[in-house]
C-alpha cells in the first residue's frame, strides 16, 4: 500500500508520482535554485550538442531552447539530425560534447528511465506498446499502483480515467491496446507519459499515422497540455501542422541549426527553404492529364479486407486512392498485383481478364508495381543496387539465351537508371541497404517506371522521403502519366493525392466510399471521407468502431488551435 497515484491529487499540477520519478525531479534536486518568478528557466536547454557517428557528424554543436508551456517544433529532412538530437536528450545516446539543462538544472542521462525521472517523456514514431495488455496495464507498466504486491487494477483504471478526463484523452481503460485504432494508441502513449509525471513531452512524427481529424484532435490535446504548464517538443517534417500547431520552430540541416523562427512570423516556404537550403515550391498541383482508353477495369473485387471495389483507370490519368492506413488499400493493391487471391469480382487489364493470373503473368501483360514496403517487398536489401535494378527486367530486356544474365548488360542497365533517376549510390555494386530511404525509393520507382508498362500501381511513393526526393518522384510520375500510361496511386498524404491525381477515390473499411474529381477533392472533404464521414449509408457493421471515431472527429467542430 505504498504508492497509490489516485491518492495524490497533486499529480494534476504535474508532480511526478510514478516510481521512477519519485523525488528525482529537478525541483527536488536543485535546492539552490531561486523560486522562479516570471523568469522561469527553459524547460529544455541544449547547448553545443555534438554527436559523431562513424563517417557522419550527426549533430554539430546544436543549441536548442524550449520554453516551458510552448509547443516547439523541431524540423528537418531525413538525416538532418533531429532523431539523434532527441536520442541525446532522452538518454539513448551520449553526446560527444555539449550540455543539457532541464528546468535550469544540468543533467546527464544514462538511460531513458533517467530522462523520464527528470520529467521527460517520448512518444516514439513506432509506438512502444504492449498489444495484448489492456490500456490500464500499458499506462501503469513499471509504475504500478499496488495492493499486497499485486497490481491494483481498480486504482490503475481510476488513474487512467482521471488522466483521460483531465486532458480530453478519452479511452477505455479495459480495452486491449492491440485492438485500438492508431489514434487511440497514441493517446495511450501520452497517458503513459502523463502517469509518470512527464512535464515535457517529445512526440516523434506524431501525425504520420493519423487522419486529418485525428491530427486535429491531437493538437487540441497538446494545447490543453501546454495550457497546464506542460511543454511539447514536436519532431516532424510536416509543415502544415507546424504552422498551425507550434509556437516556435527550430530547423536542422546537416546536423546544424539553420533557423530559429517564431511560427507566427514565418511561412511554410520559409521553413522549407531553411530545411532544404534552396527555394522549394510546396504542394505543387500539376495540370490534369488527358485520359484515353480504359487500361484497368475492376468490378466488384473482394478479398480479405476489401469489399466490392469497383474502379477503372484510363491511359494518361492518375487515379488516387486516399485513406487512412489499414482501410484495405494495401490489400486491394496486392490483389491487383497478384499477391493475394481475389475472393470475388473481376480484374481486367487492357481487355484481358487477369483476375486469376499470377504476378508474373500480370507483369507480362503490362503491369508494374511499386509496393508500399520498399525494404521488405520492394527491394532485396542485401543485393547490390545493380541487381535490384535488374529485378523484373531479367525476364525481358536483360534476358539472353540459356537464361543467363550478361553482367555487362546488368551493369549498363543499372548505370542508365542510376543516372536517369538521380539515384545517389557510390557504385552500382553497393548493397541496396546502403542507400538512404529517398534513394532506395528512387531506385524502386525508377526500376518500375523503366518497364514502361501501361499500368503502374504505386503505393506510398514518398513516405519518409525528403522534400527534394518527393519533388523528383512527383515529376517522374507526372511524366509517366503524360507519356500515356495509367497510374493507380495509393497515398496517405492528402497533398500528394490532391497534387497528382486526376480523380480521387476514398477507401474506408475496405470499401470505396467516395469518388471525387480533382476539383472537388478539397482537403476537408477528403479528410471527412477518410474518417468514415462519407459513409452515410447506414451500414450496421460501421457502428463497431463508432465511439472511437466520434471522439476523434469531435474536435473538428472546436476552433483550430491558435498559432501563438
Amino acid at each position, binding site marked *: 500500500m505504498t504508492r497509490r497515484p489516485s491518492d495524490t491529487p497533486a499529480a494534476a499540477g504535474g508532480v511526478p508520482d510514478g516510481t*521512477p520519478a519519485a523525488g528525482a525531479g529537478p525541483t527536488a534536486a536543485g535546492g539552490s535554485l531561486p523560486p522562479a518568478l516570471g523568469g522561469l528557466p527553459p524547460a529544455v536547454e541544449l547547448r553545443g550538442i555534438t554527436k559523431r557517428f562513424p563517417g557522419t557528424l550527426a549533430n554539430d554543436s546544436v543549441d536548442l531552447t524550449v520554453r516551458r508551456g510552448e509547443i516547439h517544433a523541431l524540423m528537418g529532412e531525413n538525416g538532418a539530425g533531429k532523431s539523434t538530437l532527441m536520442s541525446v536528450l532522452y538518454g539513448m545516446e551520449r553526446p560527444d560534447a555539449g550540455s543539457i539543462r532541464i528546468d535550469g538544472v544540468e543533467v546527464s542521462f544514462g*538511460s*531513458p*528511465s533517467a530522462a*523520464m525521472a527528470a520529467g521527460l517523456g*517520448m512518444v*516514439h514514431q513506432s509506438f*512502444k*506498446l*504492449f*498489444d*495484448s*495488455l489492456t490500456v490500464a*496495464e500499458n499506462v501503469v*507498466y*513499471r509504475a*504500478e499502483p*499496488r495492493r499486497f*504486491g*499485486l*497490481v491494483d*487494477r481498480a486504482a490503475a483504471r481510476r488513474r487512467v480515467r482521471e488522466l483521460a478526463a483531465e486532458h480530453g484523452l478519452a479511452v477505455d481503460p479495459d480495452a486491449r491496446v492491440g*485492438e485500438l485504432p492508431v489514434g487511440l494508441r497514441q493517446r495511450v502513449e501520452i497517458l*503513459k507519459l502523463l502517469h509518470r509525471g512527464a512535464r515535457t513531452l517529445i512526440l516523434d512524427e506524431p501525425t504520420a499515422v493519423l487522419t486529418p481529424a485525428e491530427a486535429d484532435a491531437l493538437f487540441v490535446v497538446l494545447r490543453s497540455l501546454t495550457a497546464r504548464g506542460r511543454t511539447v517538443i514536436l519532431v516532424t517534417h510536416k509543415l502544415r501542422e507546424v504552422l498551425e500547431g507550434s509556437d516556435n520552430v527550430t530547423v536542422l540541416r546537416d546536423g546544424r541549426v539553420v533557423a530559429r523562427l517564431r511560427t507566427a512570423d514565418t511561412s511554410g516556404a520559409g521553413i522549407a527553404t531553411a530545411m532544404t537550403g534552396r527555394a522549394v515550391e510546396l504542394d505543387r498541383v500539376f495540370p490534369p492529364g488527358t485520359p484515353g482508353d480504359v487500361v484497368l477495369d475492376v468490378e466488384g473485387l473482394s478479398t*480479405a*479486407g*476489401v469489399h466490392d471495389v469497383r474502379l477503372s483507370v484510363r491511359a494518361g490519368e492518375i487515379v488516387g486512392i486516399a485513406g487512412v492506413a*489499414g482501410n*484495405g488499400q494495401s*490489400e486491394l493493391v496486392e490483389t491487383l498485383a497478384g499477391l493475394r487471391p481475389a475472393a470475388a469480382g473481376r480484374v481486367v487489364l487492357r481487355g484481358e481478364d487477369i483476375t486469376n493470373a499470377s504476378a508474373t503473368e500480370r507483369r507480362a501483360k503490362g503491369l508494374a508495381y511499386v509496393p508500399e514496403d520498399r525494404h521488405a517487398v520492394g527491394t532485396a536489401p542485401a543485393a547490390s543496387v545493380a541487381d535490384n535494378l535488374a529485378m523484373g527486367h531479367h525476364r525481358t530486356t536483360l534476358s539472353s539465351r540459356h537464361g543467363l544474365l550478361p553482367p555487362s548488360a546488368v551493369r549498363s542497365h543499372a548505370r542508365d537508371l542510376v543516372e536517369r533517376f538521380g539515384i545517389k549510390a557510390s557504385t552500382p555494386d553497393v548493397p541496396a541497404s546502403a542507400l538512404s530511404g529517398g534513394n532506395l525509393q528512387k531506385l524502386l520507382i525508377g526500376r518500375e517506371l523503366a518497364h514502361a508498362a501501361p499500368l503502374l500501381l504505386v503505393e506510398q511513393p514518398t513516405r519518409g522521403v525528403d522534400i527534394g526526393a518527393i519533388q523528383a518522384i512527383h515529376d517522374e510520375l507526372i511524366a509517366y502519366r503524360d507519356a500515356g500510361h495509367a497510374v493507380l496511386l495509393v497515398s496517405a498524404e492528402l497533398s500528394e493525392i490532391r497534387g497528382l491525381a486526376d480523380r480521387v477515390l476514398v477507401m474506408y*473499411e*475496405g470499401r470505396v466510399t467516395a469518388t471525387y474529381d480533382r476539383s472537388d477533392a478539397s482537403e476537408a472533404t477528403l479528410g471527412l471521407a477518410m474518417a468514415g464521414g462519407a459513409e452515410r449509408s447506414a451500414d450496421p457493421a460501421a457502428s*463497431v*468502431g463508432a465511439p472511437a471515431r466520434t471522439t476523434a472527429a469531435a474536435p473538428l467542430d472546436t476552433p483550430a488551435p491558435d498559432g501563438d
Partner: protein
Amino acid sequence: MFFDSDLLMSALRALTPILLAALGGALCERAGVFNIGLEGMMLMGCFTAVATSWFTGSPWLGVLAAALAAAAYSLILAVGTVTLRGDAVVLGIAMNLLAVGLTSFLLRTIFGVQGTFDDPSLAGLPLVGGFSPLAYLAWAAVGVSALLLSRHVWGLRLRGVGEAPDAAATLGVSPARYKYAAVLLSGVLCGLAGAQLALGNVTLFSENMTAGRGWIAVVAVMLGRALPLGVLLAALLFGLAEAAGFRLQGLGMPQQATDAAPYVVTLVALFLSTAQRRRRNARTTGVAS
C-alpha cells in the same frame, strides 16, 4: 468400465511431470523465450534426483538437487539466447541431445551400469493421500503461476517483456533479467518434474527415461496458449492418454501401440488447434478491423 475413477487417478499421476515442465515452458513463453529444452532439463532432473537419493538416502535431497541441477542446466539456454542472442530452437535441441548423452555417460561412470539403474534400497518419494507430494506442488504451482502472471507486478512486467521487449526497456524494465528469471524458474520446475518421474512415478533411472514428455510439455504450452489453466487442461489430456494407454495394454493391446497413445493425442490436438486458429485468423482478417 473403461473410464472410471482409477483411470482418472492414474491420469492425474501421469500428468504431474508434464504439468510441472509445461508450467516452466509457459513462463518462458510469456517472457518471450521459446523453450524446447524442457525434455533435456527434465532428464537432468531425473538423473540428479536418483543419484542424490542413492548417495544420501534422502529422496527429499534428491528433489532439491534435481531442481538445482536442472536450473543450472537451464543457464545454457538463458546465456545462449538472452546474453549471446543465439537461436533458442538450436540451443534447445542441443540441450536435449546433450542431456541424453550426459546422463547415459554418468550412469555408466557412476553406477557402472547400462540402460537402467534400479535398486530396492533406492529411496523414492512417499505417497500422501495416493499422490506424491510433488503432485500437490504441481497443482499449487498452477494457481500460483496463474496469479503471478495475471495479477502480480512481476507477472505484468514479465508479460510486457515477452510481448515487446523494446517497449519494456524504454520504461526501465530490463528484458534480460526477466528472461533469465523465467528460464531459471523453468529449470527448477523441470528439475522437479524429473524428480517426480524418477522418484515418484517409478523409482529408478533409465537412459532417456523422459521419453518425449518434455516435448509433450512443449505442445501443452502451445495448446494451453501459455496460460497456466490452459496448460493444466492440456496436461490433463495427455495424462488421460497415457493412463488410457496403460489400460488398453491391460486389455491385451500390444504395448507398442498403447505407448503411442500420448503422441497420437499430441498430433491430433496440435492439428485441431492449428486448424481452429487458422479459421479464427481468417475470420478476423476478413473483418479487417
